[in-house]
């Protein structure tokens, strides 16, 4: 079997394994964690688009997660809009805000972009937290509509919901894989490697970065909407800076800029955080240290280790330039 065919089979095998998981997990609690993991992985994939592919450190990510979540929650509780209409509305609003905010923020580069987006993320969070007449502030929104059912398929059990989240994650990963292989994805990587050079060879850097930022915001919004609808309750913590950092950690652990890295990273870190729930109070100490150690010793994450391992034993058989 050629390497290309083998790597094409890997995602299908993984998807099959993931589809079997809910059958093995009889415990309701594990199923919910699994579902949360899928949702957070969608958000991590979104951050990876702007950070890993286009090379821009956006610290407003949780803000867009919050926008998607609150759009669905508020439309559902205040206007009676069902989940399946609220979700696309949340994604659309996140994407639109991403486009608008990106148009402004992306004119700043490097450190300035990171600081700017950190301020934007904080503004979104503070508005959500303080605009009590709309968002109920700290109290949060109760009774967010769930996915209900589409025709004969009812999403009332935890297993059904986990399949739904898995479906969205699979769609997300497929879409990003397509983008990465397309001229759009190549442009992003060119911008990441050398913005001045990309611009010099005639690529429209601004358009490329803005598209990456919009896609990233839309995916954050999608994850936020699913998060709110599946839990049924939503508080302002969903949009805070810690949420951005957690997502950043997922991406860094898995491997920045790789396709499967953010998903793997989410499951490892989020899974560990659930296993270590007893050590809840030390969790952030570990995570902070982990982030620093990763960047010092393993800046390409698990995906980097995987690549060099494969190059190690495959390299002797196939000569790569």
């Amino acid at each position, binding site marked *: 079997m050629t390497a290309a065919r083998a790597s094409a089979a890997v995602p299908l095998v993984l998807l099959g394994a993931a589809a079997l998981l809910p059958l093995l997990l009889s415990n309701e609690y594990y199923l919910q964690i699994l579902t949360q993991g899928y949702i957070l992985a969608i958000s991590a994939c979104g951050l990876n688009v702007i*950070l890993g592919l286009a*090379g821009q*450190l956006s610290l407003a990510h949780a803000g867009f997660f919050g926008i998607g979540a609150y759009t669905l929650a508020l439309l559902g509780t205040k206007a009676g809009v069902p989940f399946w209409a609220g979700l696309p509305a949340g994604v659309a609003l996140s994407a639109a805000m991403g486009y608008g905010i990106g148009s*402004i*923020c992306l*004119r*700043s*580069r*490097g*450190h*300035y972009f*990171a*600081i*700017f987006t*950190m*301020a*934007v993320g*904080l*503004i979104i969070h*503070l*508005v959500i937290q*303080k605009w009590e007449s709309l968002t109920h502030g700290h109290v949060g929104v109760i009774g967010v509509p769930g996915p209900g059912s589409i025709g004969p398929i009812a999403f009332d059990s935890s297993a059904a919901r986990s399949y739904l989240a898995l479906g969205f994650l699979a769609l997300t990963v497929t879409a990003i894989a397509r983008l990465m292989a397309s001229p759009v994805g190549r442009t992003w990587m060119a911008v990441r490697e050398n913005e001045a050079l990309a611009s010099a060879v005639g690529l429209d850097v601004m358009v490329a970065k803005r598209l990456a930022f919009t896609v990233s915001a839309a995916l954050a919004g999608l994850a936020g909407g699913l998060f709110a609808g599946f839990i049924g309750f939503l508080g302002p913590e969903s949009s805070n*800076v*810690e949420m951005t*950092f957690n997502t*950043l950690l997922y991406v*860094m652990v898995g491997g920045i800029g790789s396709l499967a890295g953010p998903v793997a990273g989410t499951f490892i870190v989020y899974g560990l955080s659930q296993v270590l729930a007893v050590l809840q*109070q*030390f*969790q*952030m*100490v570990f*995570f*902070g*240290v*982990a*982030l*620093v150690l*990763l*960047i*010092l010793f393993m*800046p390409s994450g698990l995906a980097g280790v995987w690549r060099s391992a494969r190059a190690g034993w495959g390299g002797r058989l196939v000569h790569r330039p």
Partner: protein
Amino acid sequence: MELFAQQVLNGLVTGSVYSLVALGLTLIYGTMHVPNFAHGQLYMLGAYVSYSLVTRAGLPYWGALGMSVVALALVGAALERLVFRPLRHAPPLNSMIAALGVMLCLEAVAQNIWGEEFRHMDSPYGGVVSVFGLPVAAHRLVLLVAAAGLMAGLLLFLTRTLAGSAIRATAQSPEGALLVGIDTGRVATTTFAISAGLAAVAGSLIAPISLVYPSMGALVTLKAFAIVVLGGMGSVPGALVGGYLLAMAESLGGTYVSATYQDLVAFVVLALVFTFKPSGLFREAA
């Protein structure tokens, strides 16, 4: 009128703290080009160390403040040596993410040692004095004078001493500084230590009139960034003036416009500056 005068005074007090924090941030950015996202957490740790030394070890206030400065300077130097120096030649993204990791870690460490509760510490200057008929807590006056004195001292250090000149030279051109024989590695460690020490002073000065809690540094970091961006990344006078200006805007805006959104002032200012000047108000100054 009294309300106005009171708010101006509040602005000056908060401004002293902002300026000290922003000074440290701008020094690090100027010499090492690292946006130190963990800077507010150094300020928070400084406050906690002073708090512990005063309330648990029974040290006098100024002694505690001094030891807090030494402790944080060591923390700052260690961060430079262990985290930021190895990343000097890595892409800028890496040192930014490392700074975020440090920030996360320090806040969690404080939460584990001191807990979530809001802590209060007494000032040795508990009285109220009258300034032109205005009642003012004595500690606020002490804070104003101490901060101003420290800033003047720092400016003299940077402009009049050899070590200060070495820091400025490194900020202007690391290669040039290296060529004329400056040990830029040592400059970086020193700068980090000074910057963390300044944050410790700021935290310790504000602790008796404010409360001490693990997340007290989070907003301060962002405000310091707003100031530094306004004043020019790396510019010392910009950070000094910007700190007082921002605090004044917050204090007056919070009184006369909206107290709910007082904390938003800094970020709106920051967003406006970047909207119209994507690379900050000034070109990076030394």
